[in-house]
């Protein structure tokens, strides 16, 4: 692969540059068909992940991420470079795009009926996302729900699923044929791997869906499946707490989230078996 490369990830386009060979390999694996040569496609963000200079090239080598001239993060270990690039791309969107209400949430859909899964790290959200994405659901996003203001419509932003620690082995056993990145060890989230979603998601990467429910998942080892219906206040507070740009966009964000919560049910689900969650979603919410 030759850098800079243009990565079209609807609705955004990134220009990516790197001098780190395994980053190039991972990009090719994860994003296979999303590289574009189309000159009329103009990049929204110009990002770069490069090795740190000086003796840190040789001694405990590091990677640095840049969005144009801005360096939002401290350097990370070189072996974490690919994960850092993924997080950096998320940062670009979360800190600049203000014309969607952006929620830290997974989004999966069936027949263009979408469910939002907003959740903090450690809730098992990504494991559930991976399971659903490979069992008949369409992944719109693992990290951010882009909601068009004053609607229930969510724009996909298809990216790999970020799996952590024990979920890595689990996912590799569940989906032996799936496409995984290399592992980034000992990050602030532990060991992480990126998993490319199935073709169905990539093919429909620009097909919006309508939100029909909001589900707050919480993996709980000793609970098979407990489902609590949330009232509107509870749902709203949880949703707002997971919104990236809610504080910036002001009234429009507030009105979008309140309208959404008034129209769709909200649930908190404690579970230790993803298959049972899937069965509940399919039978009760779609």
């Amino acid at each position, binding site marked *: 692969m030759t850098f800079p490369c243009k990565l079209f990830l609807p609705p955004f386009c990134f220009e990516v540059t790197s001098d780190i060979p395994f980053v190039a390999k991972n990009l090719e694996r994860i994003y296979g068909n999303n590289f574009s040569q189309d000159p009329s496609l103009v990049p929204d963000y110009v990002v770069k992940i490069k090795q740190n200079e000086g003796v840190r090239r040789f001694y405990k080598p590091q990677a640095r991420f840049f969005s144009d001239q801005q360096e939002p993060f401290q350097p990370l270990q070189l072996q974490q470079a690919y994960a850092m690039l993924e997080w950096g791309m998320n940062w670009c969107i979360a800190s600049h795009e203000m014309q969607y209400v952006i929620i830290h949430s997974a989004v999966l859909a069936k027949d263009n009926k979408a469910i939002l899964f907003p959740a903090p790290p450690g809730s098992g959200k990504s494991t559930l996302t991976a399971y659903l994405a490979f069992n008949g659901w369409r992944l719109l996003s693992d990290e951010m729900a882009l909601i068009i203001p004053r609607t229930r419509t969510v724009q996909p932003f298809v990216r790999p699923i970020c799996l952590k620690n024990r979920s890595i082995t689990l996912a590799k056993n569940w989906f032996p044929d799936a496409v995984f990145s290399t592992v980034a060890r000992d990050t602030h989230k532990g060991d992480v791997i990126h998993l490319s979603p199935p073709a169905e998601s990539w093919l429909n990467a620009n097909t919006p869906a309508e939100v029909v429910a909001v589900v707050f998942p919480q993996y709980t080892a000793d609970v098979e499946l407990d489902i609590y219906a949330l009232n509107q206040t509870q749902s709203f507070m949880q949703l707002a707490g997971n919104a990236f740009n809610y504080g*910036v966009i002001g009234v429009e964000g507030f009105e979008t989230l309140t309208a959404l919560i008034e129209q769709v049910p909200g649930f908190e689900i404690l579970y230790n078996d993803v298959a049972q969650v899937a069965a509940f979603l399919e039978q009760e919410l779609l």
Partner: protein
Amino acid sequence: MSLNQLITQLFITPESALSISLPQWMPIILVLRHQQLLARYSFRFKDAGVFAQLPDYTQRHLRNAEIIAEKQYRQIDSEAKELTQLLSSLQVTPVFLKGAAYVLQSNLKPGLGRTFSDIDILVPKADIVEVEQRLTIFGYLSDAISAYDEHYYRNWTHEIPPIRHHSRGTVLDIHHNLIPPVSGRAPNMSAFAAHIVCTDKGFAVLDLPAMTLHSVIHLFFNEDFKNAFRDLTDLHLLFDDFSEEDWAQIIRLADETGFLFEVMLAARYCHKILHTPIPVWVSQHLEQFQLSPWRMAIVDFMFEYTLLPKHPLTTSFKQKLAVFMAFVRGHWLKMPVFMLIGHLAMKSFFAVRDAIFGKHQFSPKNSANR
């Protein structure tokens, strides 16, 4: 036409945006974002009535920046209110400067689309310790900075190290003068005290001529030109609203405080680069402060490049040389020569150290090099 020419032309005649092709917009947007000017340009395109005809791509990026700027307008009012209240028990009235001052005055053109990363306030030097203590109690803490920087701020400059609100992240720069006292040119602040006025919402700011003079000093009596192009557009917008009386006032105040040379530079480069209208009598009056022709030619070279946008896409060798000259000149103005030699030696030591060991290795609070 070079990218920088294109960007200045877009400022002077926003209508020219209609002739820019989609692929040309990408570098323009990168440079404007880097120079924190996206929102300001967005409003200029709207004023000229061309915004709606721009490509979707351009509109989206401009609008994003506008929304971020709008958030700052909402926030600055409550921040200013809190600061004014917190300090009122010390009988101190903070005077808001630069970006915050522009945005706090709704009738002021440079407030529109102006973003800033910190709030600058001016307080009397005698009160600075009490002010810092009081703000610390209410959640403003200083960031980790190196011992050298701490020493630099406390002993040599006109401000204390920036403090940051622990939860909102608001950064405050507390000044007791407009320029470093070690420069030997720090004005007697009582000359400015007569120009403190109250906005319609009850915040203290400098009146238009004094505020403009501060912005002039900040741009031309300085060594840091990172945001120089934005600051030049600020000056253009401020001068744009000047009455004859305002011109007379800024000249009087600059005369009193010894900054007429800087006012001459500001009028000269605003006019040369952004075509700012300057009354004939003002230009004629300021001419006497020009240097000899060959020295003026060097100053022109230095500022005509340094004041333009700076980004790897626009930078030329000439601009790098000009910025370096302006950097040395700024230090020269600010510090006596023996201090300057020491300071530049320390700075080069840090630069060489970072080149060898990698950037961030020695940054305070660094947790990534474990």
